[in-house]
């Protein structure tokens, strides 16, 4: 393909002005055309120079008198809020006002329902219908008098409260103490239908705990699906959060090559967490907010599906704390492939573009020998940074350990208190010189993590064989792990989630769910196979768990067999001695489950506990929110790809149908891409009778 350097898209690409489709097309062309890459590099260099030269000069400011006048006007505006409400109501427009009047007089519940149908996140008429604030509005100055107090569309006619969606309600903490129970239920006779359920309160810790895989076991690479667990045997599910998304990018690579991914490359929680859901960020003092939604499981309608969402607080990127970033780059021979080092270099430039003078960047390389190729340098020296990146070349064998040592030493030496201190390791995971013993390497990382420096692992161009090493390193190093296969993925991991990936807001986030035996027969955690914790680890602050970055969200799905529905495949006989045991009064509270969270502030060593009870409102699957349905489709897709014994009656076609209808806003086009991947999987499955790989 001949590249046209005069196409404005190249500049638009460098400046991040292309939409997703255009961007994907441009990146495709970039991957195939060296000429295009050269043009883009030169444009980038030119724009960086321009930015540096034209950067805001000091000295241009208002006088203090002028500023005082503005602040006084701002305070005056604050004192007359009513005036603004009226103005607001007017600018909605006469037509909208009339419509609202009619609707409001007809039936407010109708309006409420239609709002709910519009999905969670709608906060009411004002946001929904306010014009975009285009500057045309300035023509309206002074046209508004406080005469419209009786305006029909003023907040009186339409309830001002947020149209709280009961389906996706924000759970309110009931208590912050681990011992106190949720809202007291009337004491009454023991549930007559208690059956063989035993009391979960009376359970002796770990005495009858089933033999589960432990967190970070060596059986990492082989994933066996979590099985259903009877509440009578163990009412508690304990696991660590996981914000990694590498598995999704990895399986996308397989599907794009028209191959079904190997079963063990499919980690369902990483697929579900790849997508953003409409969780509002926390408003209180806690850095995380919690959401729960329950509806029927699409692959087995008699089962309930519980979606638990946690959202980390958003951090304004312009107010992001200063960064102390040390890139640790594998330049061994195996990194020479186009989808490794060259892609990494382009990815780094995307990140460098976003850094400011407050940030420090250093680059350490490792191969046969390790060395510093860029000492800590200010983030606004864009051309210096870009040149250092350009000079990176591959060659030699890989001695990961020495490089890790040097990178951490550099990060510690430049430690910024309250800042983002992070080593960013970019590699294909092929450690073959030095400390190759994985155990030694993870211990080295674990030791280094105590210094307060966090770790990001970027995986490049590998099959799924090495990703267990990398995921383990990220886990041990208080870090996260992303698999980068395209520039688009690099942008998602490094730029869009800059705040999130680089700024930890809560660490060692653990979740413990207690199921109510009066409501639940059995339950199953979908995915998170290698994140399962022992129950006693929940309250043990010395036990490491997953971390959350700014704006990150975590979604966990439980499949629940309600009371009265029998478990189809029961491998364990009912208990002989614990039948008809006593259920405590709280079991009749109507709550299905109680969620407990523990997290630590990034620089603290003691955890905080949050607790939320959740009630099942018997929502059908089609009445669930689009986010819920989409997450269910992704999980179902994962189970089919894994050929899980729990995939139920679901098919790829059913997944396609659900996902296609629950795209939501999908601003970045990720859900659309998912729909395309499901289509590819269907083609893969039908075009090749023998299983995998298919061609």
């Amino acid at each position, binding site marked *: 393909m001949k590249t046209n350097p005069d196409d404005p898209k190249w500049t638009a690409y460098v*400046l991040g002005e292309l939409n997703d489709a255009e961007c994907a097309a441009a990146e495709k062309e970039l991957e195939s055309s060296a000429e295009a890459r050269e043009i883009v590099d030169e444009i980038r260099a030119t724009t960086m120079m321009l930015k540096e030269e034209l950067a805001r000069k000091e000295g241009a400011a*208002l006088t203090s008198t002028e500023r005082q006048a503005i602040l006084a*006007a701002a305070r005056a505006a604050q004192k007359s809020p009513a005036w603004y409400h009226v103005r*607001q109501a007017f600018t909605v427009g006469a037509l909208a006002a009339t419509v609202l009047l009619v609707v409001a007089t007809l039936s407010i519940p109708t309006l409420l329902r239609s709002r709910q149908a519009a999905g969670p996140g709608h906060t009411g008429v004002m946001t929904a219908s306010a014009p975009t*604030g285009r500057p045309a509005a300035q023509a309206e100055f002074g046209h508004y008098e406080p005469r419209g107090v009786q305006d029909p569309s003023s907040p009186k006619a339409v309830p001002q409260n947020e149209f709280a969606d009961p389906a996706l309600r924000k759970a309110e903490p009931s208590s912050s103490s681990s011992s106190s129970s949720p809202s007291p239920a009337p004491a009454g006779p023991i549930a007559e239908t208690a059956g063989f359920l035993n009391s979960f309160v009376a359970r002796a810790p770990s005495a009858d705990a089933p033999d589960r895989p432990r967190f970070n076991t060596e059986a990492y690479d082989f994933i066996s699906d979590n099985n259903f667990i009877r509440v009578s045997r163990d009412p508690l599910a304990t696991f660590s959060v996981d914000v990694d998304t590498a598995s999704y990018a990895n399986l996308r690579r397989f599907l794009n090559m028209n191959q079904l991914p190997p079963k063990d490359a499919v980690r369902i929680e990483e697929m579900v967490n790849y997508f953003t859901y409409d969780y509002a960020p926390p408003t209180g003092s806690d850095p995380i907010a919690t959401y729960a939604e329950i509806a029927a499981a699409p692959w087995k309608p008699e089962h309930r599906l519980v979606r638990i969402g946690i959202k980390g607080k958003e951090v304004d990127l312009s107010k992001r704390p200063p960064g102390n970033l040390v890139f640790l780059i594998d330049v061994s021979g195996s990194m020479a492939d186009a989808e490794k080092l060259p892609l990494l270099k382009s990815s780094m430039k995307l990140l460098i573009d976003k850094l400011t003078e407050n940030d420090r960047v250093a680059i350490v390389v490792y191969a046969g020998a390790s060395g510093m190729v860029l000492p800590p340098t200010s983030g606004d020296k864009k051309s210096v940074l870009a040149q250092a990146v350009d000079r990176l070349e591959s060659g030699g064998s890989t001695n990961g350990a020495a490089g890790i040592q040097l990178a951490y030493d550099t990060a510690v030496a430049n430690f910024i208190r309250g800042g983002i201190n992070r080593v960013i390791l970019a590699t294909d995971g092929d450690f073959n010189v030095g400390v190759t013993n994985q155990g030694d390497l993870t211990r080295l990382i674990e030791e280094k993590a105590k210094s307060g420096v966090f770790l990001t692992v970027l995986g490049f161009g590998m099959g799924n064989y090495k990703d267990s090493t990398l995921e383990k390193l990220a886990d041990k190093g208080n870090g996260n792990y992303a698999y980068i296969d395209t520039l688009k993925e690099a942008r998602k991991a490094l730029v869009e989630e800059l705040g999130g990936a680089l700024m930890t807001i809560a660490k060692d986030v653990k979740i413990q769910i207690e199921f109510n035996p009066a409501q639940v027969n059995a339950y199953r955690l979908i995915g998170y196979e290698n994140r399962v914790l022992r129950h006693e680890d929940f309250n043990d602050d010395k036990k490491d768990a997953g971390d959350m970055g700014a704006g990150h969200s975590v979604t966990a799905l439980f499949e629940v067999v309600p009371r009265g529905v029998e478990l189809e495949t029961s491998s364990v006989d009912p208990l002989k001695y614990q039948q008809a045991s006593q259920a405590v009064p709280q079991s009749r509270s109507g709550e299905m489950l109680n969620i407990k969270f523990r997290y630590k502030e990034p620089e603290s060593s003691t955890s905080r506990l949050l607790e939320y009870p959740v009630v099942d409102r018997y929502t059908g699957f089609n009445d669930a929110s689009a986010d819920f349905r989409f997450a269910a489709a992704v999980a179902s897709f994962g189970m089919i790809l894994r050929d899980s014994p729990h995939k139920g009656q679901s098919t790829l076609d059913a997944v396609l149908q659900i996902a296609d209808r629950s795209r939501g806003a999908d601003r970045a086009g990720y859900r659309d891409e998912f729909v395309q991947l499901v289509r590819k999987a269907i083609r893969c499955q039908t075009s090749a009778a023998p299983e995998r790989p298919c061609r």
Partner: protein
Amino acid sequence: MEDATNSTWIVAALERYESHLVHYATWILGDAERAREVVQETFLRLCREKESRLGGHLAQWLFTVCRNLSFDVRKKENRMSLIGDAEAAGAVYERPLAAIEREQAMTEILRIVATLPKNQREVIRLKFEHDLSYKEIAAITGLSATNVGFLIHTAIQTLRKALLAQSAKGRIS
């Protein structure tokens, strides 16, 4: 909807854009004092706005109001006969641009920028000095976003080629 009763967003806007806007207005008007008056008036008008009504287009709003007010000032002073047309609007930058850039020790790239057509200079400033998006620049200048993209790309191409030619020359000598 709490923002109606909260003026902190205006303080934040002042903090963030004051210097940018003074620069921009000075550049249009060629006079720092009148530029400050225009910027003050811009922020006073912002106080009468409601944050939610700006729908996240704060920068775009501020630059547009500041630009229009600047042109109003110029119009009143009869220094300009025509407004609204982007090409004509560009014409007013000639003098102040030259003045400002002479004052600074001009680096090579700025020297090349100064040779660009006026409409390209304006979008280059808005993009790289004030960090606005194509869409915002389009709304502020009244051009289409495609046109903005074309102007910026053309300018960047000119700069890129000039810089390449220079580094080639440097290598020979």
